[in-house]
């Protein structure tokens, strides 16, 4: 089969030589300045294209990748019967797999993965991004990997590692590697859930007016700079101390610390390993939400699956109001990852580490680059905790506004220049006195991080470096590393939904600890890329659909509406259900958004569930 690339086809259409093509140039020089014969020209292009395809084929054959989709699909099998929803990727799917890959998916989610693979095969394994299943298999080929390369039901293609991939590397093995691609660019991106003692009825009547007031006052455009004044010295300390810095400075409550993963502080953090450029990016962004899929949501409890577990978390009734913050380490984390990738490429050549994918840049854990990255990553992780704590502080709005519903003032946390006007707007709406809202942190999880943990592997206790990219730690009950309050129920896992869809709180299980290094899914996971969303979806349709569900949008960028539309994501409920059936975590609470704030580079989206749907439900 001969494929034309578009540039050549265009050149043929125009009957011109294509200066970038060596064959054409050769022919052109041979035939002088005379206009080339059409046939000759076409022949030249053909031969060139065939030549390049031959070359590509040779390369792919050497990698063993010259397979049709049906051949590829044979490598993906269902897991044993006692493991529902488990799919196995056999060795040989990509060259050099040291362990088998596995992923959790029901039929529908599996179909999404297989469609992706088919598309890739149809492209002759050419161009575009690698499908997630290929990425899982590539990770299985990294040196030092233990047991499996595991993917969660929300898996989708990412940089190097698929998002939703968990991989553990043996710390005792000198060959073992650490890869920034396995952590992701948004280091310690995570979710924090705050509970309140408010009820939905307290907020329902005013939510429209709040939205309107905000709509009138919030300038369109994001606050890219925080309102918490930070000096370089503060930043340095925050990078080393994590949430302890926030507590010391009074931005966080002492009780917050125990309800954070790792107690909100990575002890190996070294701020000197964070480049000046990264620090410069992080300095003004402290306490800001960030762009993309980050958001802050006011939610109400829709369903409680596990009553006693929910009670332990301080959530005891349906319609209780919670606040969810999804954010990460902003530009600082991104820069740390970028810096490390550059250094690791050199380290790979030096240590002769071979990977299937160039994006899987990595370095030996004990090498200088590896250690440096782990220290810098820990510092960036600390920054993310400080960031989330700062936003919690702004959401709590302690002593700043005397208002029962002052938590709604968190809308103002994105650093609005004309904050005073907004505060006045709030004061007009709420005239009640201040009241304790009991805004405690339920838990704070991170879903982009690599951590040293101890796990039982084949009956042996091993020290592992567990990479979790787009996957959340979910430790079982009685694990020493989870807070004392959750010892009986297991670690709470916070799963953020998408625009207008539910979010979930799960708890960790023993089975998850055995099968997935104590990990579970992290959210809905994209079903199509941002580009594809923009191309295939019409924002008017999306808006209409949302309207039908009772969600009205106040301010929106068409671009972001399409990118973040529910259609662009996998169904969070089925993702969570797969994890629940597979037994790697347990459903506990379902939350439904009342209002969502999303920030893109240029726009703020404010979503609002029309009170009508809720009123109906209550009736």
């Amino acid at each position, binding site marked *: 089969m001969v494929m034309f690339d578009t540039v050549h086809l265009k050149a043929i259409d125009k009957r011109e030589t294509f200066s970038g093509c060596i064959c054409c140039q050769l022919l052109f020089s041979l035939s002088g300045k005379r206009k080339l014969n059409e046939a000759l020209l076409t022949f030249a292009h053909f031969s060139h294209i065939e030549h390049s395809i031959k070359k590509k084929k040779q390369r792919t054959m050497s990698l063993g990748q010259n397979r049709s989709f049906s051949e590829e699909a044979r490598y993906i099998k269902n897991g044993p019967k006692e493991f529902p929803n488990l799919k196995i990727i056999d060795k040989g799917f990509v060259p050099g797999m040291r362990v088998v890959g596995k992923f959790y998916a029901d039929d529908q989610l599996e179909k999404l993965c297989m469609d992706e693979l088919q598309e890739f095969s149809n492209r002759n394994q050419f161009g575009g991004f690698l499908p997630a299943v290929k990425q899982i298999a590539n990770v299985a080929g990294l040196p030092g990997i233990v047991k499996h390369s595991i993917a969660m039901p929300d898996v989708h293609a990412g940089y190097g590692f698929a998002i939703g991939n968990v991989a553990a590397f043996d710390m005792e093995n000198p060959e073992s590697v650490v890869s920034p691609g396995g952590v992701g660019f948004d280091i310690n991106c995570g979710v924090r859930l705050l509970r309140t003692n408010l009820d939905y009825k307290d907020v329902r009547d005013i939510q429209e007016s709040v939205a309107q007031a905000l709509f009138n006052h919030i300038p369109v455009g994001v606050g890219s700079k925080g*309102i918490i*004044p930070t000096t370089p010295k503060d930043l340095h300390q925050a990078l080393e101390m994590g949430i302890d810095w926030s507590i010391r400075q009074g931005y966080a409550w002492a009780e917050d610390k125990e309800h954070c993963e790792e107690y909100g502080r990575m002890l190996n953090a070294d701020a000197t390993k964070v480049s000046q450029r990264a620090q410069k990016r992080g300095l003004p962004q402290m306490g800001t939400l960030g762009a993309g899929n980050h958001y802050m949501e006011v939610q109400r409890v829709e369903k409680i699956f596990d009553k*006693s577990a929910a009670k332990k978390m301080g959530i005891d009734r349906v319609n209780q109001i919670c606040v969810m913050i999804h954010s990460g380490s902003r530009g600082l984390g991104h820069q740390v990852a970028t810096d490390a990738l550059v250094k690791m490429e050199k380290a790979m050549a030096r240590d002769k580490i071979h990977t299937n994918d160039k994006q899987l840049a990595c370095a030996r854990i004990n090498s200088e680059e590896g250690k440096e990255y782990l220290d810098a990553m820990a510092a960036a992780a600390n920054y993310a905790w400080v960031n989330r704590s700062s936003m919690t502080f702004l959401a709590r709005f302690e002593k700043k506004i005397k208002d029962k519903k002052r938590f709604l003032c968190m809308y103002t946390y*994105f*650093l609005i*220049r004309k904050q005073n006007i907004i505060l006045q707007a709030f004061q007009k709406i709420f005239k009640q006195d201040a009241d304790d809202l009991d805004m405690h942190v339920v838990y704070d999880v991170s879903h982009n991080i690599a951590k040293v943990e101890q796990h039982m592997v084949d009956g042996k206790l091993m020290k592992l470096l567990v990479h979790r990219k787009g996957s959340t730690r979910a430790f079982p*009950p009685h694990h020493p590393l989870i807070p004392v309050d959750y010892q009986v129920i297991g670690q709470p896992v916070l799963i953020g939904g998408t625009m207008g869809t539910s979010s979930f709180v799960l708890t960790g299980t023993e089975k998850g600890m055995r099968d997935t290094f104590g990990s579970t899914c992290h959210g809905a996971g994209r079903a199509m890329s941002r580009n594809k969303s923009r191309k295939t979806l019409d924002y008017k349709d999306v808006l209409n659909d949302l309207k039908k569900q009772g969600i009205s949008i106040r301010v929106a960028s068409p671009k972001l509406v399409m990118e973040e539309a529910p259609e662009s994501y996998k169904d969070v409920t089925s993702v969570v259900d797969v994890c629940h059936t597979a037994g790697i975590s347990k459903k506990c609470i379902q939350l439904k958004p009342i209002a969502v704030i999303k920030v893109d580079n240029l726009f703020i989206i404010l979503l609002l569930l029309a009170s009508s749907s809720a009123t109906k439900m209550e009736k």
Partner: protein
Amino acid sequence: MSRISPFRRKLAALKYADWKNFDISNRQHIQALVVWLEQTKIRHYSVEARGPLKKTESAKWDECLNDYLEELDSPYRLKSTSSSTNKEDKEQMKAQELEWTYIIDWMLSEAILCEYSDHKDELNERKPIRRKEKTVYELENCGSTKEMNNALKDLCAFLRIPMHPTDNAVTCQTILTFIKDKFNPMSIKNYEEYIKDKVNTQHSKTSNDDDHWVRTQSYKDIIRFYPEMINFSTGDEMVDAATIILRALYIVDVRNAQNQFSEILNFLQKFTSDPKTNAEKGKVGW
């Protein structure tokens, strides 16, 4: 928070009689202290030579003090002359107070040094004072008459706690601990709140209510009512029940420790906390 006098600890250590009320801005207090320090601790002058320093009413007292400080090799001197009467000039007062702070602090350190060298051996042998041990009730001789046994049995049945088969002392101790734990004002208050909650949520009663402890009679019940507390089985139900109890005790211990940490952090926050926001800094758009 009120300002703590920086000298309180040193004064207390030197056993100065009026250490609680010492005020650096009060000239009489300072003079009395200086004289006391020289007389009892530093003892630089002979008894006769102390005369001028003792004359606190004299106008030359300041000069006298400066001479004294010079002889002691102190780096500090009283620069401003006695102008404490001039109360209008607040700044001058402040400067003078600071001057006195340095001098008194230095003198106290010197006095502590003298005190230490005087009682060096004695002090070096001192060990931290042990806290008073909690009163141990004499339970050994509580006897094992039939009457006593029956009474204890009734009490145990009433309190729903097991009775030691042979040693009544152990039973008594257990009862004591139990009563202390469950019938202190805090527990009673908590229980009242719990009952109130219970009444409020009566309609939503489910199978996993927390009333089990009342009905727990044997180790089998423990396993039945708290399956979430154990994720394995040793094959021996008794051991399993013990595991559950140990785990529960462990959780209580860690919770208490965690509370103490939080309390300490909260206390320290009083000193370090200084959250700031500056809305001007927030930048919207590009």
